[in-house]
């Protein structure tokens, strides 16, 4: 192999790795990291308790009920925010999803939907701090992932497709969602602690 071929191969390998391989692997690692977390959330703890043939601790059951209620309330807040948006605006927002800036606020993603603080910040940065009551809406949001809905809301704000009044309502909704998640975090941490202690007792530690 002559030097020209060697240098060409080196260039191609470098470009292939840093242009394609490395970003792909990093995406995969980040994805696994977000999936691999093991919070004592309502989903995995409920499964464990139903597998347990013994009596369910009343306090734990109460915590799990509260977690379920909080999760439903979060969904309802998202429904209320999405109800403000007309179909046409959603289509425009979806078209502008690629223009969104990368997330800036790091939160504990075991408990917090990472796009909520992004939404809060973006509403305030675009429309300033103005809040207005957000109507109660029972029931889940339209079909789709929660992150998709929040992405649409972010895009609406980023492209200034909301009226000042709707922006103020969405800011209120994002505050509410985050407060609900903060409550959920407190309960989940307590739940995890309780379960860890229970496991330790079972193992005789």
């Amino acid at each position: 192999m002559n030097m020209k071929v060697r240098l060409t191969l080196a260039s191609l390998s470098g470009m292939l790795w840093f242009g394609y391989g490395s970003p792909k692997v990093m995406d995969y690692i980040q994805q696994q990291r977000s999936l691999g977390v093991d919070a004592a959330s309502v989903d995995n703890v409920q499964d464990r308790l139903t597998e347990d043939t013994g009596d369910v601790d009343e306090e734990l059951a109460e915590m799990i009920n509260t977690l379920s209620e909080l999760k439903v309330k979060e969904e309802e807040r998202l429904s209320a925010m999405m109800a403000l948006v007309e179909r046409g605006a959603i289509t425009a927002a979806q078209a502008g999803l690629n223009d969104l800036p990368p997330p800036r606020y790091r939160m504990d993603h075991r408990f917090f939907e990472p796009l909520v603080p992004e939404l809060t910040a973006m509403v305030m940065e675009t429309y300033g701090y103005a809040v207005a009551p957000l109507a109660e809406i029972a029931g889940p949001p339209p079909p789709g992932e929660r992150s998709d809905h929040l992405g649409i809301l972010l895009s609406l704000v980023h492209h200034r497709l909301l009226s000042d009044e709707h922006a103020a309502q969405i800011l209120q909704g994002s505050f509410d969602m985050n407060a609900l998640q903060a409550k959920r975090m407190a309960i989940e941490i307590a739940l995890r602690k309780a379960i860890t202690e229970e496991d330790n007792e079972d193992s005789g530690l």
Partner: protein
Amino acid sequence: MLGAVLFLWPMPAEISEKIWGDRFDAWTTLWLIEHLGDRISTWNWTPETTEILYPLGYNLWSFGHIALQMIGGAMVAIGIPLVVTYNLLLIFAIGTSGLGAHALGRELTQSHLAGVVAGVTFATTPYLYAEARAGCIELVFAGLLPLYACTLVRLMRKPDWRRFGWATACLAIIGPFNWYYTLFAGVLALGFVAWQLIEIGPQFRHPSSATRRRGIGMLLGSLVLAGVLNTPLILEARRETPSRPSISAELFSSATIFDEIQAISDGSTPIEELTEDTLKQVDAIQVHFNSTSLGSLIDARFVANPLNSTPGRLAYLVGLFSLFAAGRRTWGWLAIAVGATVLSLGPYLNVSGALTLNSEATHWPLPYYWAHENIPFFSKAYRPYRLSVIVSTSLAAMGAIGAAAALRSGVVRVPAVWVTLLVVLGFSQPHWTGEKPGNQPLADARIEPIYTVLAALEPGAVIELPLHYQPISTANARSQYVQTKHKHPILNSNQLIRWPDLLRFQEFVTSNSALHTFVNLSRTKPPYVVDAGDITALGELGFRWVVAHKQVPADAIELTGDMAHADLLGPSAWALLEQMFGAPVLDDGNSVVWDMHEATGERIEIKASIAEPISLDLDSFPDNLPLVLKNGQKIPLFEGHATRFTAWVKPITEASTGDLHLRIEDDGVVRELELPLLSGHWRYVSIPIESQGNTRLSLVGRGEKLLHFELVAASVIP
């Protein structure tokens, strides 16, 4: 050196006023340089000082490596300003790192251009840059490592006593500059010997291998001799890390242990609860936190955080090109690079850089674990990511060999242009690639004028509030730095990361109710109880001045997030200090100094918080997300009876006093008062309401632009 200037730009443009530096090492190093300058001027060589950690004292050997700082001390002693000295040392460290690697490359190839490739590859790694940003100048001064590799190559090629002497001297001199690098040089040398032995293979006893056999023997001899020469210093420098506790998978994977250690590391665990065992756990877990993650290696971006740093994409690309260009001539260096990379991963594979390891990872200990637990002294290298400097050395050597091969092939036309391009590309990396850390703000190293006034006051030791037992905030680190201006001894120390020193500090402060109350005063709620006799006792020990701050530098840097909250004293703390010491002797609006001789001499007791906290919609956001106000927009704060409003406020965008107002509505009268704002700083706000009835308080934006700001500890005093 011009490359180093470009690399560290814009620091050279503001060389006398600003530094690259985080909350810990840079300020501590500044203090040490100044202190050594004083020692040189007064020819005082006692190892103990009571300038910090007064009256307990601190042993300067605990800093471990002080040779570079001693050079800085000499520069200060001849009149070069402290901050200029520090910054010049940093430029010098990057420049000499390049020169050291150039010498290695030149020795390997007899080509200056190839030497330049090695120099650029080594000196422009994210690792060196990140250490420069963190203020670890002794780690940036890494040129001795490739220079040592150069002496090994020379010794192996022609083993004579002169070359033996150079190799020994080079290794022996690394120690006083940096003990880590002494160990790493040893690892590099052993890797080099292993490579030679493998290459000789069964021919070891053959007469044709005589030169190599002699080279290997002399190399090992030089290792031993350098070790012997360093022995007296090693015994003293061991104070830096007196003993390293064992590491375990359980320690690195337990969320409970992590939470406990985190609480100690951020100084929020009550000081009386610290024990030798828990502090050793804190030491042990550093091994995990300081290990390179697989993600960082794969990403290899140009970053500002040393813990995520690697040799970087440029060095890897240079290595790759050389591997293709020079083939098996690079294999030996490649093997050393791969070995050191594996060691830099630490005791267990951390794929994503998670703070706690998952259970799968803990089943498979890596070679570092074995080395840490079994090889004497290896545990001193308890920050595995730093082993990447060996990788950089090897990649630089490969770079020179590859460049020489390419240049000699005649394929590369006008080689000087290509090498110049590489130089520009390498040294300009902080400004265009990765996190572009060169675009981030520098730290202001100017010392507040009140310390000049404090210097002129009568002798007496100083206590800066709040006291912290861990290096958690910029303000805490600066309390040691500003000692270089006022020159009074201080109780505060940024050096309590060594557990024996911390336990001495713990015993001292917990024996006095005033000092015990001062520890973490910002984050500790009442009751506060200070016995009259304890204040008197402090005076008898030589303490005189107490300093507290109404303006605190913001702290939002990459390493561990914003910890300035730990320095923000609340209304109950201010009330305590006023009750203890009466009127301050100095108050410039930003800082306050009390004289202990003016203490009321009575027992002080604040049973409960004097203020009611105000809750905000953003309180539930753990990451301090800023509030944003347009001109005329307002945030309702409080409605009820209040005599005073207090808070800490920090503008995030450029702002000045007048951009944010406190709106007070009572009895149909509306008033607006300006809040003092200073960009890059937290400011304490304490505004009397002067109203008898029901009052409504809100914040109103009055700036022309959107105002981004943070508000913490907002409260009213009923």
